[in-house]
């Protein structure tokens, strides 16, 4: 691999690096642009658990929307528990307040027997819409996000993918 890199002209090498940087920054800008458009810190999430089955399975891709802060009962929201950084996708089953008062929500997974009171932070019985909720689910694509679950669960896959990409770069030089 390094041999083929060394064989490149300096200009060619620079162009190659710039091209790679362009691809990376385009992807990053698209993500951040979508983030601004949806007003959500993570506008696309991958489902990590079976708590919303059979609607959402592990690996399904969800599109979030966070404008229109008056979340209604029956909406599926993604929230982060205070002090933990795991996004949870569950349905709103109770709402209190809103308007001039802060909006409090209670959530439950469609496939969980009990509501989420046990999941929340120790002194918390309801979610605060403006602080805890990342967005409301508006779109669904099955299975596409499974690759991210595979990558995080089987670290050797990451290595395999890197080797494959490096190999393809070398092969395409020839």
């Amino acid at each position, binding site marked *: 691999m390094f041999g083929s890199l060394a064989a490149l002209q300096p200009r060619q090498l620079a162009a190659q690096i710039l091209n790679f940087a362009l691809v990376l920054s385009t992807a990053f800008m698209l993500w951040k642009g979508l983030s601004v458009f949806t007003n959500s810190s993570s506008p696309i999430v991958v489902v990590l658990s079976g708590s919303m*089955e059979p609607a959402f399975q592990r690996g399904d891709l969800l599109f979030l929307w966070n404008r229109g802060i008056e979340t209604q*009962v029956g909406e599926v929201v993604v929230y982060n528990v205070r002090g933990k950084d795991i996004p949870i996708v569950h349905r709103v089953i109770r709402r209190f307040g809103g308007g001039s008062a802060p909006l409090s929500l209670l959530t439950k997974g469609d496939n969980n027997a009990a509501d989420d009171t046990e999941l929340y932070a120790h002194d918390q019985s309801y979610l605060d819409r403006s602080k805890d909720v990342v967005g409301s689910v508006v779109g669904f694509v099955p299975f596409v996000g499974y690759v991210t679950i595979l990558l995080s669960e089987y670290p050797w896959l990451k290595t395999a993918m890197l080797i494959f990409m490096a190999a393809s770069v070398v092969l395409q030089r020839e």
Partner: protein
Amino acid sequence: MHNTLTRVQNVFGFFTSVAFAVAAAIAVSVVLSAQSPSASLELRNVQVVKGRPHYYSTKREEYAHVKFDLDADLSTLFNWNTKQIFAYITASYPSSDPSTIPPSEAIIWDAIIPANNALSHQNTYIHPYTKADTKTKPKKPTKKSKKDKTSKPYPAGTQPGILRLPNQKPKYQITDISSKIADRGNATLRLHWNVQPWVGALVWDNRKTVGRWQGLKGGETKFDFPALKGTEGIKKEDLKVETGGERNRGKPA
């Protein structure tokens, strides 16, 4: 360059573009399918009693137990892109300051109604047989057929989305954030649904007609929460709740 790798890359690229185009076409085309849902929802009985949020809690709260009659035809909501419908009934009641704070709302009953071509899953709603059903279909579901993987939660020949539930128990006893729910007037019981697609946008119920989707007529009823009752005067069976098919035992996230 026509080596194997570029060929594989081209084939994979073409496959993803075609898959994306087909998925987009399916997701958008649902606006063409006509919908005409109808429902009638009546309150059967509502009781308010004192209770605890869970067994080990010392907190005493007021809980409302709402029984209802539902007669709904949501069968037209099932089209080529419907995986399931999450049907739910909410009770909403005015907040402490109705002029600036919208009404509070809570789900009292819900059910996951799968489409006919959806994979079978334990967490889908199995519609109970009524007497009228057993007359027309003498074959009662045996235990064996319930366990059968291919069996559908509907009696043969009937469509998904038809709900006839007389004197239905709630799935959830509800309380207010203030723990007090007795004697609240001007409450509404309302049927809602969430159509969950195979691919594309999630859709909720519409009361107004949009294009080919007719708005829901009916499915709404007014009531008042009664005064608090002592638990001595009420039989335990009257406060039972329906158990759903939820079976998640993994990580709750």
